[in-house]
């Protein structure tokens, strides 16, 4: 199990998720999320127990992207490792762009994904942002994002 393989798998996972978010395709997106799902930002931490609980967040992000004319939502893997043969922990940087213009500064993120029955799903996600003060707006990118470690005990 090479780190390069982990990076490639995580990149493919993120690309598929980004396409689903841009297309507001919740069914496609939630195929890749496991529950309970832990979502951590710079100023919050929440546990979601079902897709029903997380759907409002998904559609809020999707509406924010579409409402601001985002043409692409690119998440580029920086590093990834296999924690075991069915678990990958990785970091990436998110770029939110309209054509060639950045709508918000790039921000870091981290996640743990697990493979079960041949399908990778995210169980923990950490974002270097604060939730927007108003629904359907872009998140606020932290000045100096500090991603929380995801220990195996989490």
């Amino acid at each position: 199990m090479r780190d390069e393989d982990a990076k490639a798998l995580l990149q493919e996972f993120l690309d598929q998720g980004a396409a689903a978010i841009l297309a507001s395709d919740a069914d496609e997106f939630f195929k890749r999320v496991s529950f309970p799902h832990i979502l951590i930002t710079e100023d919050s931490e929440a546990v979601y127990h079902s897709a029903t609980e997380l759907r409002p967040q998904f559609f809020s992000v999707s509406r924010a992207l579409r409402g601001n004319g985002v043409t692409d939502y690119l998440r580029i893997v920086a590093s990834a490792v296999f924690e075991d043969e069915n678990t990958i922990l990785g970091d990436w940087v998110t770029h939110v762009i309209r054509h060639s213009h950045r709508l918000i500064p790039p921000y870091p993120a981290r996640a743990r994904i697990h493979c079960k029955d041949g399908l990778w799903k995210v169980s923990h996600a950490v974002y270097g942002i604060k939730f927007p003060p108003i629904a359907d707006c872009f998140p606020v990118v932290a000045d100096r994002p500090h991603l929380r470690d995801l220990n195996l005990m989490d």
Partner: protein
Amino acid sequence: MSTAAELYQTWLDRMAEAIWWREWDVVSGAMIYPHKMETKDGEIAFHNPDDMVEAATDFREYLGRIGANAYLRVCNSADFADEMQTIRGVHTTYILRGGSYLVPPFSNQMTLTHVDGLWLGAGIRAAVSNHLCSILSPNQLRRKQLAEGHDIIKEG
């Protein structure tokens, strides 16, 4: 003080926007001349801003033709050299449409030179074939080949 990577990324972002919005004066004014652009299978030298404008125009048309709706370049690494008058960096180019890669992302090596307070592009080498991504202007390549053929004939 900005890091080499920050300066490099700022330059990449500004140029990507200028190419997208066809701000040819911005593009041609951000380079030094002569200037060389290379791919895996070819190279073109630009002797003046007009050459650069023609190349950038052809590249922008190529982006439109393949249906791109975003063009992004992201710095992977960059370092100062020559007493901080040069930045040598590596970046990845993304040509996208709705979350999909229209061209597989490819790596580039680029040099910036500090001239009169401005960072100017001083040459780029893209690790991609021009058949896969039309970075080099087909019109300029054709003229170059014709000119080289002329030289051969003259030499013969």
